[in-house]
């Protein structure tokens, strides 16, 4: 149940898989993303509400074939230059995109976690998104006749998140901003949770969510595994790094040097 990060990625993530690394600003599994780059995965469909630095890195490193997302930016800083370079200039390769809103993505994970093929929301109406995204469809309420919007379930092959703690049996606990953590783990065929610490026994904490070990495929002990994101109670968000990434990522050569540093 508890394995090394390298073992977990080798076992769970295969070329061509649909992979979701989630964490809404908080508890982003960045180290796991780096391990996917190191192991040289190719042709991935990457799913994430808010592709940020780690997805910029995965895209720039050539791991991705397609991106499913709702907001791709460097939060508080600006653009994702590797993402833009891929979309605007197909570098290092073409990147197909499937674009949604946050409400749509969140509900797609909910449907996935619920074993339903689709979710219903009030969303997208009047926007240009449905003209470019095939996975948005109208649906009629059988009781009122009102038209709403349906989006299909997301069921990634692999869902990956970072969390504060696990116990030795693999029960996982996280707190603070929990985002879509529970949904992505439950929606995915396989799941990996990287954790700050492994303890003998989980103790209850306010706002804490617990995922039982049997709902998680693998746990890896990766202290600091969410840097430059943070793990409430363990680390602070490294805002300087987000700024710093802007400089690295603007330039293909600078990015190349960063990538070499990561993989060598």
């Amino acid at each position: 149940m508890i394995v090394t990060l390298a073992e977990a990625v080798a076992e769970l993530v295969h070329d061509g898989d649909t992979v979701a690394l989630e964490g809404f600003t908080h508890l982003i599994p960045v180290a796991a993303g780096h391990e996917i780059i190191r192991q040289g995965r190719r042709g991935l469909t990457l799913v994430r509400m808010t592709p940020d630095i780690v997805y910029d890195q995965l895209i720039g490193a050539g791991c991705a074939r397609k991106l499913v997302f709702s907001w791709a930016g460097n939060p508080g800083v600006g653009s994702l230059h590797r993402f833009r370079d891929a979309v605007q200039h197909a570098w290092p390769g073409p990147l197909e995109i499937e674009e949604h809103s946050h409400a749509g993505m969140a509900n797609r994970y909910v449907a996935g976690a619920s074993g339903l093929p689709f979710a219903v929301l009030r969303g997208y109406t009047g926007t240009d998104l449905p003209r470019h995204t095939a996975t948005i469809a109208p649906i009629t309420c059988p009781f009122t006749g009102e038209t709403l919007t349906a989006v299909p379930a997301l069921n990634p092959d692999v869902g990956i998140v970072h969390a504060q703690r696990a116990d030795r049996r693999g029960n996982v606990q996280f707190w603070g901003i929990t985002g879509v953590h529970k949904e992505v783990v439950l929606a995915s065929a396989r799941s990996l949770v990287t954790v700050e610490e492994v303890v003998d026994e989980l103790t209850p904490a306010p706002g804490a969510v617990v995922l039982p070990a049997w709902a998680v495929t693998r746990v890896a002990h990766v202290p600091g595994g969410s840097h430059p994101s943070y793990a409430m109670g363990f680390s602070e968000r490294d805002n300087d790094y987000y700024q710093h990434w802007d400089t690295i990522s603007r330039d293909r050569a600078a990015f190349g040097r960063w990538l070499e540093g990561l993989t060598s």
Partner: protein
Amino acid sequence: MSWTADEMMTVAAARALRGGTRCFVGIGLPSTAANLARRTHAPDLVLVYESGTIGAKPDRLPLSIGDGVLAETADAVVSVPEMFNYWLQPGRIDVGFLGAAQLDRFGNINTTVIGDDYADPRVRLPGAGGAPEIAASCREVIVVVRQSRRTFVDRVDFVTSVGHGSGPGDRARLGLRGGGPALVITDLGVLEPDPCDRELVLTHLHPGVSPEQAVAATGWPLRLAPTVSTTEAPRPAELAALRALTGSAEHEERT
């Protein structure tokens, strides 16, 4: 006390928020304005962030919508699906604060792509995030954006978030239940939808800004309201609170 155009814009946006209002806040200018309002005239303003924090009371300006200080000080922290489904979608939020890369005369917003071809964009922007549903469901929307011909365009290249569509009745036809953009607050002044045809018209100019400047910074023939008022300049207390928040003692002279 001198001040910058951005400071005037932020102060004007803060003033638009009344006490007790539930405000859906994005990061950047909206967050600064909302936190300023909470520090000055609206201490019981309810800040809601899409990261799931309800009633956050940060003692410093959060640097991301998922800043730890938001979770630590919130009345409640909920999952992201719950935030959108239980809190935003049913219309529980009074004011949605949005930015824009492009904005048209009906307050429609583009934050997706610049250029005519979605598949081959001139500039790829971050995308929708929470904005389409914030624009749809909040009782009203306030847009905070710097005014220029590049941003204030006749027709947005991509409708990411619906304002007043193509005019009166459009929101109702689309089934959008919130009121849509009520104010567009810029570094030059304030625009509001005309009560009849819903086109944005200039209703306020910030001190020292001429109508010609505003017209020149707008990509459609900007109409002026019958009475264009002058915004009250930032008061020293407002400026002091704003600068304490942003941690910048230095400030540029307003040109």
